[in-house]
């Protein structure tokens, strides 16, 4: 017998909440959901912001609350932002990485948790358009706090890289 628990329904709803700045990936793909708890008719969702100063946080709060409150049996949604543990770029799922690439954003490099002393931009990022690594960094900063700017020497496209952090 398989029944879908209410927690599973919450996770499913969260998988439909898109990152407002990168609408190709959900907050689940980004590894931003630390915890889901349902007690009675109250759901509590703990979200880890990707960057402290991310201006998308208030939008994410609203979107998470709206998506979860649509679940039958949920009357109250508590959305809590936390830095414990700090969000790190290795939390992005494999599916999330594929979606980022398809969106034109090079996913962050490195598999395991990034050590503070080794946080750095890769010298050669992998171009999300042609796959070449004949690229160079143009700017450690970009249009949002989480992105850096690169240029692909092979296909001559500028592209963005999600910063390893």
């Amino acid at each position: 017998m398989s029944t879908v628990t209410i927690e599973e329904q919450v996770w499913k709803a969260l998988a439909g909440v898109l990152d407002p700045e990168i609408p190709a990936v959900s907050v689940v793909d980004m590894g931003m959901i630390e915890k889901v708890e349902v007690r009675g008719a109250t759901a509590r969702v703990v979200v880890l912001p990707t960057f402290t100063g991310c201006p998308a946080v208030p939008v994410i709060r609203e979107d998470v609350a709206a998506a979860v409150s649509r679940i039958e049996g949920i009357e109250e949604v508590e959305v809590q932002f936390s830095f414990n543990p700090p969000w790190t770029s290795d939390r992005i799922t494999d599916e999330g990485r594929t979606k980022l690439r398809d969106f034109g954003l090079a996913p962050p490099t490195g598999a395991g948790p990034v050590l503070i002393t080794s946080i750095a931009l890769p010298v050669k990022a992998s171009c999300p358009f042609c796959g070449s690594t004949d690229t160079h960094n143009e700017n450690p900063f970009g249009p949002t706090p989480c992105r850096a700017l690169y240029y692909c020497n092979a296909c001559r496209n500028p592209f963005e890289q999600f910063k390893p952090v």
Partner: protein
Amino acid sequence: MSDSLISLLTALGDDELILGHRHSEWTGFAPHIEEDVAFSSIAQDEIGHAAGYFGILGTLTGDDPDHIALGRAPEDYRNAVLCERANGEWAYTLARHWLYDTADDLRLEVLESSAHEELAQLATKMRREERYHLIHADAWIKRVAHGPVEGRTRLEGGLSRAFGEAIGLFEPFEREDDAIKEGWLPTASSELRRRFIDRASASLDELGLPTEVRAGVDEAAEFVASSSGDLIASGEEPPGQGTRSTGGGGRRGVHSDDFRQLWDDMTRTYREHPGATW
């Protein structure tokens, strides 16, 4: 909770807010489009970090973080004078950026083990982000130090001005002794200052920059209690326009003329349109 914790968070948040505001003034004006983007992004990070500190502060005092940021009188800000100085020329901006982010890294490193759990978690997260500021600042300092003589000379000028002022980041804030006793700040400002001077001096040596840019920095200067009970650097004048100082004063609300202009600009909308939302 604790007055010393409030005092610590105010100093930390104000440094980030005020320097973030100065960095944002390069938006549209930086000498290079990539730097326009970089300084805008760094400004956004710093102001976001200020919001993080003010968020914790708000839970202690009951104040709205926006009000903490924009609703205080000029003399209630506790940022170091270094952070409020007008941007001036690019070389000064780079020198300040490098010195500040070097100092901030040392400060965040110790705050990661603050007895205030939420502050410790915030510091851990912020330090990872600040890493990119350091990478950016280091790259620029290196580029200019190894470049043509005019840029190098200007950088030395910027460093000469900013180095002394950077020492003001380590002026003890009000009730610092209590904050150390409680474990909110695990390492005293005087020790952080020593680490900062050591680290920055080692980098200057490595880059072949003259350590004379530190002239005027009295490494042994103590911020002592005056007869009025205020903490002042021994023999120090209030910060004036263009004068060289040890950069003290900010932690007790004594600011330069540059601050007044910044405050006026930064808080104008908040003051003229109370309750406005956007």
